[in-house]
């Protein structure tokens, strides 16, 4: 997807008051732009983001168990 189209998607999410989603999309798009890309595979990037988030939650769960919770 062209970067401009991805930005339009983020803007549409912001218009729907889905600010968190729009902010995250903007962050992913900004990373691609910083690499000099003019296209982005949005779903690949967001799948990687979800993988990171899954690991963060799993780490928090494991830490809670380690505390005896």
């Amino acid at each position: 997807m062209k970067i401009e189209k991805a930005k339009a998607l983020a803007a549409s999410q912001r218009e729907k008051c889905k600010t968190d989603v729009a902010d995250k999309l903007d962050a992913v798009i900004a990373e691609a732009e910083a690499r000099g890309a003019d296209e982005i595979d949005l779903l690949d990037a967001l799948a990687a983001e979800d993988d990171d988030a899954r690991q963060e939650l799993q780490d928090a769960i494991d830490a809670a168990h380690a505390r005896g919770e």
Partner: protein
Amino acid sequence: MRLLLIAVAALMIAACQTAPPAGEANSLTATPSNGTKGFYGYATLGNTAAELELAPLFTTNALIRRTAARRLRGGRIDVGAAEQVQAMADRARALLDEARTAPKDRRHELARSVGEIQQSALTLMERSTR
């Protein structure tokens, strides 16, 4: 009349077989507005549509997980609730991965299911937050 029909059919086939511009033959992200024609254009339109439909759902999945992690670390939800949220997000993710390559109707169906799972996860998290 028969010759005319054959000529029209030949022209239609030729239009469908127009090659994409150089350098874009394997791109999954081009859109029909870039001058491509025929089957190539339809295929890439479908991929872009999938990205537009699924990207907010992928984003929401990650946000749900990060919110649950933050609340668990802050002692605002218990570990049981966090594990339930993780399991629901995993289920949503599996459907999202399937939706990426699914035909349009199936993709819509999967997207609806993902939305329902994510809403349930958010509700669970709100009810569990102290």
